[in-house]
């Protein structure tokens, strides 16, 4: 449907300049830009269909509810979930993971002495919520290492032997990233789910990065939970998706109480609504939820387009070349077998903050710092890296600008 050159026509940011130069936006792993179809719906909903959902009998409320529920169905289709009941809409991946963590505690599924397994390369959003659980109930983290670093095996792969061993140390919950926001490596989540399930351990997958660049079928994956944020995949901020298997969502108690999540309320006792509304206390971000529909349809149409896939392959090859030509550059998981267009790197003699500042003055938006994954960035890079992350709307020409700018920056800073 889209030829690569036409993808950009859907985005107003494509004609922006920064510091007098054409903007090269390579910070997509932090947030993606929104196509016009999403912005148009967002605008239309606010102007013409603004009413609280699920409550009133008037027309506007019906309309708003309908749009919101269409967003839920779009997420169901995108993930190939069995039913829209298995899609809980949250404010983002972070809220989704916190929701699972706290509900697991309330349901008594994680307790004193239990292990919670994560990998070394988790985003703080899939680390801190579990650390909080550990503090609450006296559980502990089992952290599985990844193969990454300077002067060592650097393919970013999870140490599967360590994973298997850790599973057998009293682990009651596995919470792993599909694709780390530092390494960009696609983890073997299907295999990891299978091994955890063989021991009866539930698995949550943090799909914040993975969902953007890989098609996900939660039924084939067989994971118990899959979480992602809307704003990284063309939707607005403040909306996220938690897929949960029906059986889990039914047996987990909610952890947030309020409007919309109840069936019957008296001062003595409250009964809860059915799933998924049981987990959606308070007025939902119905505009964001509704916008999942055009956003995910846009993503799906790009993902299914052979031309776009070829384009993505070409810009990744161009990135490899641009990075390889910088003297003293260390690419995290540089030997990765399967990566998304996300590149975290350091350059000898160049502070990432300096480089990112200068790149911005050349119109190139990069991320720098620990990028919300301090433990892994501390270990492999001493606490700070640069990151370039691309979307299908980025072009080979932009990669060229990036490469030339990076060369210039290195010259200025060394």
């Amino acid at each position, binding site marked *: 449907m889209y030829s690569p050159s036409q993808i950009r026509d859907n985005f107003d940011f494509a004609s922006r300049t920064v510091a007098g130069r054409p903007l090269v936006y390579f910070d997509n792993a932090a947030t993606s830009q929104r196509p016009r179809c999403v912005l148009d719906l967002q605008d239309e909903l606010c102007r013409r269909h603004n009413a609280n959902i699920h409550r009133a009998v008037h027309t506007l409320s019906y309309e708003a509810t309908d749009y919101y529920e269409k967003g839920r169905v779009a997420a169901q289709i995108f993930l190939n979930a069995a039913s829209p009941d298995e899609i809980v809409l949250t404010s983002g991946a972070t809220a989704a993971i916190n929701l699972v963590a706290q509900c697991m505690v309330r349901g008594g599924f994680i307790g004193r002495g239990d292990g919670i397994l994560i990998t070394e390369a988790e985003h703080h959003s899939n680390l801190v919520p579990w650390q909080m659980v550990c503090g609450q109930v006296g559980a502990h983290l089992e952290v599985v290492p990844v193969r990454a670093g300077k002067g060592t095996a650097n393919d970013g792969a999870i140490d599967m032997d360590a994973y298997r061993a850790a599973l057998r140390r009293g682990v009651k919950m596995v919470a792993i990233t599909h694709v780390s926001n530092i390494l960009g490596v696609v983890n073997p989540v299907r295999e990891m789910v299978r091994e955890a399930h063989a021991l009866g351990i539930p698995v949550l997958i943090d799909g914040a990065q993975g969902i953007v660049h890989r098609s996900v079928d939660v039924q084939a994956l067989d994971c118990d939970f899959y979480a992602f944020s809307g704003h990284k995949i063309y939707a607005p901020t403040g909306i996220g998706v938690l897929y949960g298997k029906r059986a889990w969502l039914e047996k987990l108690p909610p952890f947030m109480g309020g409007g919309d999540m109840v069936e019957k309320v008296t001062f003595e006792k409250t009964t809860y609504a059915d799933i998924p509304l049981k987990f959606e206390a308070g007025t939902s971000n119905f505009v964001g939820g509704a916008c999942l529909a055009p956003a995910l349809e846009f993503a799906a149409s790009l993902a299914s387009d052979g031309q776009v896939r070829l384009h993505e392959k070409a810009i990744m090859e161009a990135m490899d070349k641009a990075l390889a030509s910088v003297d003293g550059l260390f690419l995290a998981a540089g030997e990765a077998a399967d990566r998304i267009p996300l590149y975290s790197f350091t350059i000898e003699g160049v502070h990432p903050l*300096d480089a990112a500042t*200068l790149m911005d003055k050349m119109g190139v938006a990069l991320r*720098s710092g620990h990028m919300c994954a301090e433990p892994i960035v501390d270990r492999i890079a001493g606490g*700070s890296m640069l990151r370039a992350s691309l979307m299908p709307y980025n072009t080979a020409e932009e990669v060229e600008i990036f490469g030339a700018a990076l060369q210039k920056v290195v010259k200025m800073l060394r």
Partner: protein
Amino acid sequence: MKSINDIQREIIDEFAMYDEWLDKYEYLIDIGRNLPLIDESDKTDANLIEGCQSRVWLTCTRDENGCLHFAADSDAIITKGLISLLIRVFDGRSSEEILGTDLFFIDFIGLKENLSPTRAGGLAAMIKRIREYAAEFKED
């Protein structure tokens, strides 16, 4: 001796010579390279100003005339440039002068974005620490 405001105006004039953003930053990098470093032994936690992405160590001493002297270092060169501008403005001044100064040069040289409290380089935190030192020495 030039006044603090003379020095601020001097810095504004120097940066005004560069039209291009990159040239301004190149100048800032040059300034950073000439920053008087502090002793390794002074790179302590007590002297550390923690930015989000770069670290700055800043020390302050007072001489017999009541003038304050600053030394600093950072792991990021642009951050070093920024702090050496601050030191150029404030070094050798009394606590009263430092606390009474309206710091306007940063706005005028187009580096205002660095002043935002959330900015990774932590220029706002450096200014705050300089003023804290000045207040501390004033009470002595």
